């Protein structure tokens, strides 16, 4: 099992999923979010992927009941879109949208239920702008980080800087030791020949 200290440090850093860009509460009407983009970043799909990796976990953490679907296709010229589905004030309809995510790109191109209420084009758009547009479209409520969380974030940042510095030092020392050992080995190898 992974070392307990390593695991606990990772869990402490879970703070990133609770606060930061993307920590927002979506209004009740939003029933589903789906995205569609290329598997590779060529052709302006970079922002979409970054948005998925960095901000979607935060959105999902704050809105666990809203299904989020992603389908990725292999066509660099294909669509890069974010669809927001809303259902007018009937939150129970979220359950009957039986979403079985497939890598099949047609799954979201022709949504089985209804037309998406908002469609955001993601091509050549950085992730922060995607988030801004999502907030604008849904009028979501952004969660601001509290003072305690901010200070903890600073702590983590500090620790990371410290560990980077330490890593550098240890690395230097190690490289030096190895080089010396290598020189010694060479010298001894010649002595062995003699």
């Amino acid at each position: 099992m992974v070392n307990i200290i390593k695991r606990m440090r990772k869990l402490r850093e879970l703070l990133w999923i609770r606060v930061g860009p993307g920590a927002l509460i979506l209004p009740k009407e939003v029933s589903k979010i789906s995205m569609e983009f290329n598997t590779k970043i060529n052709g302006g799909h970079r922002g979409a992927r970054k948005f998925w990796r960095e901000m979607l976990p935060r959105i999902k953490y704050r809105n666990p009941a809203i299904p989020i679907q992603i389908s990725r296709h292999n066509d660099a010229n294909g669509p890069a879109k974010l669809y927001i589905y809303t259902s007018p004030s009937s939150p129970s309809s979220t359950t009957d949208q039986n979403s079985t995510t497939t890598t099949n790109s047609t799954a979201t191109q022709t949504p089985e239920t209804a037309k998406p209420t908002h469609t955001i084009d993601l091509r050549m758009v950085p992730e922060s702008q995607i988030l801004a547009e999502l907030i604008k479209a849904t009028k979501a409520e952004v969660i601001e980080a509290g003072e305690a969380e901010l200070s903890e974030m600073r702590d983590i940042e500090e620790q990371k800087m410290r560990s980077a510095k330490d890593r550098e030092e240890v690395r230097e020392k190690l490289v030096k030791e190895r080089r010396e050992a290598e020189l010694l080995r060479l010298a001894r190898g010649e002595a062995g020949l003699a």
Partner: protein
Amino acid sequence: MAHAKSFIAPLSRCNFPSIATSKPEFARLTLLPYQSIRCAATGTSANAAKYKRKEQPGFQKKKKSRSTFIQYDLKNAEQFSLVDAMQYIRAFEVGRNPTSSKYEMHVKLRTLKNGPVIRNRFRLPHPVKTDLRICVICPPDSKAAAEAKAAGASLVGEDEIFNQIKEGIVDFERCICHMDSLQKLNKAGLGRILGPKGLMPNAKTGTVVKDVGTTVRNMVGGSEYRERLGVIRMAVGQLGFTPEEMQRNIKAVMETLKKDIAQMSDRISKEIHEVVLSSTNSPGFSLNGEFRSPNSVPTKDLSNPL
């Protein structure tokens, strides 16, 4: 030849460091006899050092080896209730294919390093459905064939399968043979193809059976666990499971584990130390044994598909 070499080598060795050193040393180089003596002297001392080094580790080697795995204190560890852990895990798995991601459970035991390991196979209340393809060798129109098909075998038959395998098409991960078909199987000479893959039915591995139906059913829904380096790891659920389903599965795992531990002989003590829940793309969350904490989200929110 060897002589010439042995003269050149020490000289070159002496020259190399002296270039870097200060001038007085450089002057010494002109005295050739003195120099050669010095070289010889250093050579022997290096040799002596080499022998010395060989002896040293022998003295230090008698370090007492540890007989148990390193244990740690969980007092300061951050632990989660099941619902909280699931909320985090589902956030980490956002946008993934829900059929490919699985919940995993890791159980750390307090146990000896060299003691017997615990292993078993059982059925979870909600099986982690894997697309395990099972091949059953039995007469195609017998009762056993119908049972096997009903239980979820993907390939049932005799000669057709033999021919297929001989052509090199092996599209299954488990192979079961009915008692009565064993002779036919042995005659077909498939050991060369199936043997290296570990698929050849054999009474020793329990793949030659009379009751095909139940074996297949156990294989399809069953899961196996085994202790490795003091930890048991196993898949306990699909990502689409609700917290209640996960709770039942985890409870079932823990009960079987406890039963299996109790069944071992008295001299061996194994205790459960820590239970960690993780998934394919998430970090591990140490569980504190509770279902939900006071401020966790309602379970209904975690029940719908991802």
